């Protein structure tokens, strides 16, 4: 009888262990776990563009991890992403003029929020807001500035369903996200070529929540990271008039083709080409 009991107990333990492992994996290693919080205090920051920042991304001061991103929501009134940072209570003395910026670890790495200390004597309060922020740098914008291609709009076209015309949509396809300040607000309904004007007409379907987009906002085709998928980014303008259903967005920026950029770079940077070319022919 005692031997019978011992294996029964062992079998019970085995079953409990198995289910415990399953429950742990299902709740702690999947998207369900994102609600987890530790002892921390929260600070908010508004970013014009969060890039690829995700919830639970690290928050760093001087490169040292001090907390994590708790939530990211779009604030339609400010046309900015509202990012809530949960910071370890030990590091609660952050001057209220500190700058929050979104950085990338390496070229393809993940993005994180870096806080650079300010000089103010006042600390930012629990639940307060860091007023000074720097948005995530888009690779296309940086490359665009670098090549003098015009930061915002290099192409005039003309369109809640909104229309936008691009001279080149790159690999953009129907279903791709439309983002403002890095937060998805809609999707691309259709991409087709205009046989008369010989450009691409893109139909954007945008969430009714976000009907406060100024009519001088710019639409641009961006790529997530260096090798990611393409999406349409809307950069808000300053006009008091808002875009309405069926309007066409006038300011657009076409997709940057990596080949074009590299081609320009090779033509302009002739020394490197001359060095490389003979070596290639030999």
């Amino acid at each position, binding site marked *: 009888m005692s031997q019978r009991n011992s*294996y029964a107990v062992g079998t019970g333990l085995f*079953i409990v262990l*198995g289910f415990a492992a399953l429950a*742990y*994996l299902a709740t*702690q290693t999947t998207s369900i776990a994102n609600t987890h919080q530790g002892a921390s205090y929260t600070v908010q920051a508004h970013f014009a563009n969060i890039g690829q920042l995700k919830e639970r991304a690290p928050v760093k001061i001087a490169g040292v991890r001090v907390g994590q991103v708790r939530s990211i929501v779009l604030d339609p009134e400010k046309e900015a992403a509202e990012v809530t940072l949960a910071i370890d209570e030990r590091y609660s003395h952050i001057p209220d003029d500190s700058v929050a910026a979104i950085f990338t670890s390496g070229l393809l*790495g993940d993005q994180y929020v870096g806080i650079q200390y300010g000089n103010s004597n006042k600390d930012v309060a629990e639940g307060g807001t860091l007023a000074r922020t720097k948005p995530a740098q888009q690779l296309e914008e940086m490359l665009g500035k670098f090549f003098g291609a015009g930061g915002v709009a290099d192409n005039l076209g003309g369109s809640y369903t909104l229309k936008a015309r691009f001279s080149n949509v790159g690999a953009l396809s129907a279903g791709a996200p439309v983002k403002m300040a890095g937060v998805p607000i809609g999707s691309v309904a259709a991409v087709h070529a205009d046989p008369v004007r010989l450009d691409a007409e893109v139909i954007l379907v945008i969430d009714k929540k976000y009907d406060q987009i100024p009519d001088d906002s710019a639409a641009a085709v961006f790529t997530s990271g260096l090798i990611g998928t393409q999406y349409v980014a809307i950069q808000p303008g300053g006009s008091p008039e808002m875009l309405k259903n069926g309007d066409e967005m006038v300011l657009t920026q076409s997709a940057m083709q990596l080949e074009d950029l590299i081609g320009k770079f090779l033509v302009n940077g002739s020394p490197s080409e001359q060095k490389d070319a003979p070596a290639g022919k030999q």
Partner: protein
Amino acid sequence: MSAQPQRNVIANALAQIGEAGLFGLTLLAAVPRSMKHARETVRQLWFVGAMSLTIIMVCGLFVGMVLGLQLYYVLSIFGGTAASGTVVAIAIYRELGPVVTALLFAGRAGTSITAEIGLMRATDQLAAMEMMAVDPIAYVAVPRYLAGLIAMPLLCAVFCALGIFGGHLVGVTWLGIDNGTFWSNMTATVDVWKDVVNGIVIKSAVFGAVVSLIAVYQGYTTPPTSEGVAYATTRTVVASSIAILALDFVLTAFLM
């Protein structure tokens, strides 16, 4: 195999699959009758499940550790070591967890089931049970089959947990990937239904059913000689391995 005629290999294989399928139906039909032998099922669960925990845990740990190491090496070329948590979790949930657990299970528990039932057959214990009006299907075969069916998903869950712990140990503790990035990337990408439930629950339950069926069938139909038991044990491992890997492809195609 060499003891049997080599001709009609394909026909023999098909006949074996068909007989195993029919035997599986016999087992399912006998499940209600075996309910009065529930204690025997628990004893078998202890034997094939709880006693397999050690090998499953050790192997899971090392699979996770080697994944962490390899991924760190490859991903550091692209500066993407932050993704290693995601890749470890998805690789383990979707493929390595169910498949490696099933292969280990076939080697650890399947062989012993075949050998045990085969020896019962060879020493006429099954015939003796029939003489005593004890149904050997309900008393011997079904409890072992049910135990394998229940044990596989649980073993797979333990394997996956240890695998992720191993990946975390190597990636975060030794190689210095950020702990939060490791978990945040994992939790941002891994989905409960598509990854955890499909992998741990569905795949491993199917593997458990197939491996246990093969093990019980091979044991039950063993030629009653010591050589027959040896061949049956070998065939359990070979047939189980092929079935696991082939079914894995089919299941992945369906569950994607």
